[in-house]
């Protein structure tokens, strides 16, 4: 509720969480359906939002108590002065490059001349949002592979529409995540690069966050939320079949695809070093105007 968490009957707090309905957020749904929230005295309502950037205003205004957003977005918000604090890890890359190893990849048409990150410069790559974690990590991956990131061209296309754009030859390559990765590969595309894994070790891609106000006023609740999420993260990591089952409930991913998608990793710890790396990369790419104060964001 927008009046802050309300103490319901039986000693539970009602909280509202703004989170995208994608593979990455499976733990928060698990936490609800498997009783991790309840165990910690929380009754949660999960409101789907479009794009992580849209949950930030909700959290700031108090409509949401917690949000889910990617690291770059949170760093940018912090830099612009939004009083946000990360409270738990959200989702991490598997850290492994190679076909079927990570949940995000750059895909090219089957007959493309692109073979690896090195070949990408000079080509047109679709990302879901410009100046965000996608293009930063791609640049880093290219740089690492010895290519010239300055020659990369990016086009912004929503994830669901990338397959069509790639098939029609509107772009040379697409940077995508599950379930689109599996679907696009089904349609004949080929993975050539895994930027999350190649750019940063064990990247913490996204995090759960709250506002400084809530943290100040109800630190106990935040703590219980963190505990619940961490329990759920651990559960998700060890119970992939439960995750796939949960995906069948809160998303519309076709069942045949759910069975085959590559799941991300859900460690309970935020990889601070990776966040610092992302911050440095974003600074290099001009997304951040100043060196980021990572400590202010992370718990």
């Amino acid at each position, binding site marked *: 509720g927008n009046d802050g968490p309300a103490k319901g009957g039986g000693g539970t707090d009602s909280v509202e969480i703004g989170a995208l309905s994608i593979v990455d957020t499976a733990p928060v749904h698990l936490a609800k359906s498997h009783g991790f929230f309840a165990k910690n005295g929380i009754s949660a309502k999960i*409101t*789907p*939002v479009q794009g992580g950037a*849209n949950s930030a*205003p909700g959290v700031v205004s108090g409509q949401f108590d917690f949000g889910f957003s990617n690291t770059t977005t949170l760093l940018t918000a912090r830099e612009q002065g939004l009083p946000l604090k990360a409270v738990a890890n959200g989702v991490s890359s598997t850290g492994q490059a190679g076909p079927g190893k990570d949940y995000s990849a750059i895909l090219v048409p089957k007959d493309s001349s692109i073979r690896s990150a090195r070949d990408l410069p000079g080509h047109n790559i679709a990302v879901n949002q410009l100046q965000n974690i996608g293009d930063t990590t791609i640049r880093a991956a290219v740089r690492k592979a010895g290519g010239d990131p300055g020659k990369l061209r990016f086009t912004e296309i929503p994830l669901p529409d990338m*397959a069509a754009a790639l098939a029609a030859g509107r772009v040379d390559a697409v940077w995508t995540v599950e*379930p689109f990765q599996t679907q696009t590969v089904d349609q004949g595309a080929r993975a050539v690069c895994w930027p999350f894994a190649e750019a940063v070790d064990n990247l913490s891609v996204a995090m759960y966050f709250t506002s400084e106000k809530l943290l100040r006023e109800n630190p106990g609740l935040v703590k219980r939320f963190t505990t619940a999420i961490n329990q759920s993260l651990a559960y998700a990591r060890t119970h992939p079949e439960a995750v796939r089952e949960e995906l069948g409930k809160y998303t*519309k991913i*076709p069942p045949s*695809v759910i069975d085959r998608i590559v799941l991300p990793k859900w460690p309970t710890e935020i990889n601070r070093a990776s966040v610092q790396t992302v911050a440095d990369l974003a600074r290099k790419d001009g997304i951040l105007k100043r060196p980021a104060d990572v400590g202010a964001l992370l718990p």
Partner: protein
Amino acid sequence: MTRREERAGAPMSAPRAAGLGLLGLACLFAVAEAVPRLGLIDPRHLPPATAIVRRLAAELGDADLWTALGETMRSWAVGLALACCLAVALGVLIDAVPGLRAATASTIEFLRPIPSVALIPLATLLFGAETGSTLLLVVYASFWQVLIQVLYGVADVDPVARETARSYRLGRWARLRHLVWPTALPYVMTGVRLAAAVAFILAVTAELVIGSPGLGLRIQLAQSGGAVTEVYALIVLAGLVGVAVNAVVRAVERRVLAWHPSVRGEVAR
């Protein structure tokens, strides 16, 4: 000339008009079926019409869909009604108070092109609660449609009719009710039809972006789940709702505008 047929020909019966309308929709269906089947577009990106319709039929069996549709229609109806009332009231006021038109023109023209979507942060800030935000967006976007139509409509009053009203000393209210309003009504009807679509679009978009429950949310879920056929099925549903809304507005129009050349030319001739 078509006009002659229209004037001199037999008036068209309602079933015949409906039949023609169905024929038009059938043509659309045929095209939508043929394009993917002939491979002009990859059927995986644009499924053939039959597949979409089949999927839609399956969806319609889902009670949740009806709840979602109900949610959307509720914010649609409330938002549209609010926008229409506000716009008509303001439009009439602007016409009635001398100088107000000039004083408001610049502001109206400045505010009109601001996309509703850009107001989302402000909306969540002001209202927080989802319905409030959705309503704000819906009202903001559809308000202008009606307002502009009203402003043009009230300026169209026949000078002789205006003089008649003045000479019989019809009061402000009577002039409004009996002269200005009927004259503006055809314009308003067009405005309402325009606004109805815009309000519906905004209701869906707001759900899509803010994530309040409804048809838009379902579309978004289907999109981010890569369920292409379902996305199109829901879009078709949105379109059909539009067709239904238009049919209702047309029926209303036939009643309230029976005196107007545009309608009376079609019934009794």
